[in-house]
C-alpha cells in the first residue's frame, strides 16, 4: 500500500536519511523501531510532506507522493499523528477533532457521524469534549490526537511515538483500540521506542539505524532474534 524506495532527506545541510526502503502492506499494522535520532521521525515527516525528500520515492496506492504537500498527502489518505501529540492546546477537544476533518467535503452529517465513532472508540473524549485539549492527561491527549487523525477518514494512519511518557495501562488501552481499528480495515504504521510494546502490537517490523532500515521482518520473529534482544532490549 505504502512503498518507500531509497529515500534521502535531511535538515538544511545535515542529512538524516540515507536511502530508506520500506513497504507497508494493506490491512496490517507495521511498526518502526530504532534508537533516538535514528531518523524515524524524519522519515514520517518526509512521508507526510512536512519535509522534502532530496532523493528516492514515496508511492501510496500507486500515486507518487514524493513531492506532495501535506494537504495532498492527507487528501490521498494518509493521516499523521505527530510526535508529542501536538494538539491545539487552547482549543476544545471537539474543535481539535473538527480540525482533523478540515479537508473533508462529504458533508456535516458524515463528519458528525465520525465524531460519534470517535466518542465510541474513546468514551473519555465525549466527557471532555468541551474542555481545552491542553487540560487533558497524557493518555487522553494521545487518544485525542489519534482520534483527530482518524477524523480525516484515512486509509493509512501513521503514529509517531505512541507510548511516549504514558503509563503502561494506558498504552495497553491504546494498543487495544488500534487493534480494533485494524480489524475494521485500517492500515497502521506506528513508530515506537519501546521495542517490546511495538513487537507485541505489530504484524511486521522495521528496525532503523542511522538513517537506514537495517533489519525488517515478521514481528514475532524479530522478538526472538538475539541481536535485537541485545541491541534494543538491553543486556539483561
Amino acid at each position: 500500500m505504502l512503498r518507500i524506495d531509497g529515500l534521502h532527506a535531511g535538515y538544511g545541510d545535515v542529512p538524516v536519511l540515507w536511502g530508506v526502503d520500506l513497504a507497508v502492506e494493506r490491512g496490517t499494522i507495521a511498526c518502526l523501531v530504532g534508537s533516538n535520532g535514528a531518523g524515524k521521525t524524519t522519515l514520517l515527516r518526509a512521508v507526510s510532506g512536512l519535509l522534502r525528500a532530496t532523493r528516492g520515492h514515496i508511492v501510496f496506492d500507486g500515486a507518487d507522493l514524493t513531492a506532495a504537500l501535506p494537504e495532498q498527502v492527507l487528501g490521498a489518505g494518509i493521516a499523521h499523528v505527530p510526535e508529542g501529540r501536538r494538539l491545539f492546546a487552547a482549543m476544545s477537544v471537539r474543535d481539535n477533532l473538527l480540525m482533523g476533518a478540515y479537508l473533508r467535503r462529504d458533508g456535516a452529517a458524515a463528519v458528525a457521524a465520525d465524531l460519534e465513532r470517535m466518542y465510541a472508540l474513546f468514551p473519555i473524549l465525549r466527557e471532555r469534549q468541551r474542555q481545552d485539549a491542553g487540560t487533558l492527561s497524557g493518555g487522553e491527549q494521545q487518544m485525542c490526537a489519534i482520534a483527530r487523525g482518524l477524523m480525516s477518514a484515512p486509509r493509512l494512519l501513521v503514529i509517531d511515538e505512541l507510548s511516549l511518557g504514558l503509563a503502561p495501562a494506558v498504552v495497553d488501552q491504546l494498543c487495544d483500540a488500534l487493534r480494533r481499528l485494524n480489524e475494521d480495515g485500517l492500515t497502521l504504521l506506528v513508530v515506537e521506542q519501546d521495542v517490546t510494546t511495538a513487537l507485541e502490537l505489530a504484524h511486521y517490523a522495521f528496525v532503523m539505524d542511522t538513517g537506514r532500515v537495517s533489519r525488517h521482518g515478521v514481528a514475532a520473529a524479530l522478538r526472538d532474534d538475539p541481536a535485537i534482544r541485545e541491541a534494543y532490549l538491553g543486556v539483561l
Partner: protein
Amino acid sequence: MLTLQILANGLVLGGLYACIAAGFSLVWGVLNVINILHGSIIVLGGYLAFFGYTQLGIHPFFSLLVAAPLFFAFGYFLQSALINRMIAAPVLLTLSLTFGLDLMVQNGMLLAFTADFRKIILDPPLGVLALGPVVIPIDRLLAMALALGLTGLLYLVLSGSRIGRAIVAVRMDREASALMGVNVRRIYAVTFGLGALMAGVAGTLLAMIYPISPLAGTTYLGKAFVICVLGGLGSVPGAMVGGLALGVVESFGGLWLGPEHATTLSFLLLIAVLLVRPTGLLGRKGYE
C-alpha cells in the same frame, strides 16, 4: 458626574481602539509579522469614507460595505504576492519590509491627498444622546457600536467557522495545522486580508470623529501596539479588553495630566507592562 462623562468618552474611544487593534493583533499573533502598514490602511479607510461622502454622498456607515471587501482583497494580495516570501525571515527583515511598504503608501497618500487634515462633517448632524448628566454624540456612539460589533463578528468567525478554526490552529501550531491539511500560506493571506479589512473599516468610522491626514496612521499604529501588549497577541477578546482599557486610561490621563500627555501615558504603560509581563497582561504564550 464628570467622572461618568469621562468614563463614557473613554469607552467610546476604546471601542474604536478595539477595532483598530483586533486586526493588527491577529496578524501579529498568527503570522509573527508586525504590520507597520496597519496605521496607513486605517487612514486609507478614512479617505475612502471621506471622498465617498463628500464626492458621492455615500454615508460613512454604508461605505463600510465597500471598504470591507476592498481592503480584504488588498491585504490578501499583498500577503500572497510579497510578504509570504519573507515570512520565515528574522524579525528585523519582516519589520523593515512592512515599514518600507508603509513609506510608499504614505508618500502615495501625500501626493494624492496632500497633507491637509480632513474630517467628515455629517450634514445634518445626528445630534447627541443625553443619559442623565452624560452626553454622547450619536455619531460617536454608533461608530463605537459598529466597531465593537465588527470586532465581535471577527471573534465569531474565528471561533465558529471552518476557516476561522484553521486560523486559530495555525496560530497555535503551524506544523500540526499543516498535518490537518490546512494550506498555511493561504491562511496567512486570509489572515492578513482580515487584518487589512479591520483596519480599513476602523478608518471609515474614525474619519467621522477625528481629522485624518496621510501621516496620522503612525498614532493609530502606536495605539495598536499598546493594546496588543495589554491584551495579548492574536486574541480578539484581548484586543477588546485592551482597547477599552486604553481608551479609559487615556481619557482619565488627559483629565488629570492634561491632554498633551495622553500619548506619553500610554507609551509608559506599554513599557511598564512589557517589563512585568512580556507576553501581555492577558496573553498566553504563542508558538514563537
